[in-house]
């Protein structure tokens, strides 16, 4: 069972960062646009966006002849959103003053990462494709009304356009951009790789549930009568249980190392941190210890197979969710984030993430050690009560 789970999660982790479509998908959102075909400046803007600007890493632009086609594509999921650039918007000098708005359509119901990404994309598209061109078109119309010849107007507009394009294309060098990553300072692949690993290790105690089935008070009593008290019993059993979990960790690490060495898969580049699979061994030691102690306590203290499975599963899922294993915790309210840091799962994520990015380890380590001691102590208390008839 442990092998099965380890293979499942190992493969999942591998797939998350190895899959080419993921790499492709993670940087490119398809954005449709309608209505720029008959304007050369707008076409230039689109060209820049597609080929020269750094936004090209995120956006793939797709032109549609009319809005119905764009709408159909949106409904079919071929594009994430589309922008309609109306003739009124392009042709009128007073468009800016009138507050003429760009029409922007996107699929609904997607908040969070995708929603944030789409807002960013819309902002980029709005700034580069529309407002740039609007300014230039406004200049053209203003010069025409003041009686400038077409040759002069084109010269001025070209200068203006080139200056603007230059500023846009070099904007990255004009500001200091510090990437905090999606959560805990990790890149998106590294974050989900870490949470997937932690979710595996918080679930692995389930693989050892047979360890707690068919347990009899008589065994604990017999051992006590032989001189093995509750503390020694619990520590010995917990050590065996810990080895079981370490075995699962080793298996995953071996799987990932094989992919690194044999398949030449470059983890460090894809996770965007100087991290290699073998580093999971020291990085996960404390989290696995805390998860082992917690799993041992829950599975040992709760009576009945169904109760053991149900209660432990619900607690594990709750802890995993609040800690941000399924969804980055930066999107949670501050109170939930604070609670997360106090839970074994949340402290484990902080601990592993900080090892990867070189952050502080003391606080999460203290939380993990405290939980290990607490759950061990509680397990000893449960055993003590069980020994007494």
């Amino acid at each position, binding site marked *: 069972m442990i092998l099965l789970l380890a293979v499942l999660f190992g493969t999942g982790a591998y797939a998350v960062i190895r899959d080419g479509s993921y790499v492709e998908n993670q940087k490119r959102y398809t954005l449709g646009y309608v209505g720029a075909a008959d304007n050369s400046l707008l076409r230039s803007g689109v060209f820049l966006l597609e080929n020269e600007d750094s936004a090209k890493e995120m956006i793939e632009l797709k032109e549609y002849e009319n809005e119905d086609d764009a709408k159909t594509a949106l409904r079919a999921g071929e594009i994430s959103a589309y922008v309609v650039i109306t003739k009124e918007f392009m042709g009128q000098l007073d468009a800016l003053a009138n507050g003429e708005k760009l029409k922007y359509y996107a699929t609904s119901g997607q908040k969070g990462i995708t929603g944030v990404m789409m807002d960013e994309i819309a902002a980029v598209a709005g700034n580069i494709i529309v407002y740039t061109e609007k300014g230039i078109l406004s200049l053209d119309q203003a010069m025409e009304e003041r009686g400038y010849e077409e040759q002069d107007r084109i010269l001025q507009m070209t200068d203006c356009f080139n200056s603007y394009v230059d500023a846009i294309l070099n904007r990255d060098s004009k500001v200091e951009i510090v990437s905090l990553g999606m959560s805990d300072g990790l890149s998106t692949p590294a974050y989900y790789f870490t949470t997937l690993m932690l979710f595996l290790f918080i679930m692995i105690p389930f693989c050892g549930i047979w360890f707690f089935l*068919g347990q*009899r*008070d*008589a*065994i604990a*009593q*017999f*051992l*006590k*009568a*032989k*001189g093995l008290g509750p503390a020694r019993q619990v520590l010995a059993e917990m050590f065996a249980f810990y080895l079981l979990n370490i075995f699962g960790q080793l298996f995953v690490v071996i799987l990932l190392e094989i992919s690194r060495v044999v398949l030449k898969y470059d983890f460090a580049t894809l996770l965007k941190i100087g991290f290699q699979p073998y580093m999971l061994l020291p990085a996960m030691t404390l989290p696995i210890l805390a998860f082992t102690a917690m799993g041992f306590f829950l599975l040992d203290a709760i009576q009945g197979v169904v109760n053991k499975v149900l209660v432990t599963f619900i607690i594990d899922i709750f802890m995993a969710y609040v800690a941000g294993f399924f969804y980055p915790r930066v999107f949670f309210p501050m109170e939930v984030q604070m609670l997360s840091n106090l839970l074994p799962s949340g402290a484990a994520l902080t601990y592993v993430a900080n090892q990867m990015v070189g952050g502080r380890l003391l606080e999460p380590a203290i939380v993990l050690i405290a939980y290990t001691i607490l759950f061990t102590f509680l397990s000893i208390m449960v055993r003590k009560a069980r*020994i*007494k*008839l």
Partner: protein
Amino acid sequence: MIQIKSITKSYGKKSVLKNLTLEVEAGKIIGILGENGSGKSTLLSIMAGLQHPDSGYFSIDGKDLLKNSKLRNELVAYVPQENPLIQELTALDNLRMWYDKATLKKELDKGVLRMLGVSQFLNTPVHHMSGGMKKRLTIACAMNSHPKLMLLDEPTAAVDLVCREDIYNYFEQFRGQGGTLIISTHEVQEIELCDACYILKDGALQEYRYDGDIPHLIGRL
């Protein structure tokens, strides 16, 4: 000589054992009778070291075993009512937890393990064993330290007649070697095996001479 003096034990406000006193000479089999919840298991668990009495004294040959747990673990063997064996392991693997290799071989050849007939099912996993085999194996595990006193909590409950006979034979052999047995029981066969019987009632022991009159015995409980 086994001495139990003024043992007292309460669970909250409920007093289970009240100044309980008992003296047993070596080489005797003593039966403790009583209704369920009368305190038989509590008495055995105190002697086995599973819990502490509120007050009292328990010794073998003058050695205070309540204060010397290491000595108690050596001198007292406790056989609980349920089997305390690891179900997935074979008889041999269970024995290996308690016997070193050399002792195990010696005991299988001519010691306690031979007497209990454990060698017949050495490679059988516990979950494939009969109730009698499990009980014999449990006794075998309990006897690893060559104790002087064996405490048994309803030892032949759910054990077939043939195995009972084997177990009783072993009790006789153990007694013959100077060992003492204290058995908590409801079984008439075991009562007949005892040199003396006591009824545990209202937290105190009363000696009872069983003469085959079961209705009288029931009336006393």
